[in-house]
């Protein structure tokens, strides 16, 4: 299901029922994006989750983070959002673009009936 902060962005009447395929798409993206070269971690893209703090709190409390990739859908199409921690060994901006490409290609291949409206990728941590 879509995330509350994204729902606000889209406006309530634009929302359509996401359905199981969205959840599947989200879960798949969570898995696939972790394998992209240079990606070391994925964070919830909601602005309230400050990546570095979340990481430290997770280490100390042992609480696993929530599924970080958010897939929101509206009549105009899908919006995919995620924040990244990236490796310092590869140029961070390139890693960010690579993630965009993977999202773009993955949605085109696995959800061809959907239109991608926006892909928001934010690098929150490097190294």
């Amino acid at each position: 299901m879509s995330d509350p902060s994204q729902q606000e962005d889209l406006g309530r009447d634009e929302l359509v029922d996401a359905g199981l395929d969205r959840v599947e798409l989200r879960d798949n993206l969570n898995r696939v994006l972790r394998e992209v070269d240079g990606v070391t971690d994925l964070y919830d893209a909601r602005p309230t989750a400050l990546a570095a703090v979340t990481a430290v709190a997770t280490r100390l409390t042992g609480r696993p983070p929530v599924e970080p990739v958010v897939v929101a859908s509206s009549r105009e199409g899908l919006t995919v959002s995620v924040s990244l921690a990236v490796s310092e060994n590869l140029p961070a901006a390139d890693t960010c673009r690579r993630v965009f490409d993977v999202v773009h290609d993955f949605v085109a291949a696995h959800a061809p009936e959907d239109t991608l409206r926006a892909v928001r990728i934010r690098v929150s941590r490097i190294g």
Partner: protein
Amino acid sequence: MTHSEDAGGRSVDPVALDADLDIIEVLTDYLDRGVDPPRELLDGSPAHHLALDALVRFRRVTSVLLTEDIAAEPERDDGWVATILANIHSEARAGRSIPLAHPSSIADLSMSEGAVRGLVRAAGDAVSGTLIGACRLEGDVTDPGAPITVAVEASVFWGERIPATAEHIRAAVESALLLHTELNVVAVNVTVTDVHLRRTEQEGR
């Protein structure tokens, strides 16, 4: 034993006590300012000397009161630290959003200012004998291509040559920013704010 000047139990002249009270105040004021009380004041009365001795001794005990409280505490697990860290968050710390270029119109790619500051810290820390402190990105980072000046503070290990170390930090920060970001960095200014020892060595001395 009494805790008041007039509740009895102590055979002291109340007038002398009021004078004591005044001298304690006066001497405390000198001690607070880190100034030696004037000789004339101390030589005015033997009681003044005694009061100063008492105050100095008393302050010494005061200064160790809490550290001894801490020493008397049983060892604690990390739970209290975890609770605090689990409760801190702030959107503002992520800072400004720095856009990253992409030809696609649906791409909304960015890097947080906080990520760039973290990168600067890591790059500077990797220079041996240094730790980076505060880091500022001066200029409009939200405008692609705008000139940006980076200002970092650093603490340098005692014995390192400061100008050379500052130059290492500057070069390391600059190349990290060049590698990872699309910022138009026009200058990296390093300010060495202090020179330090390892804490364990300091405490051992």
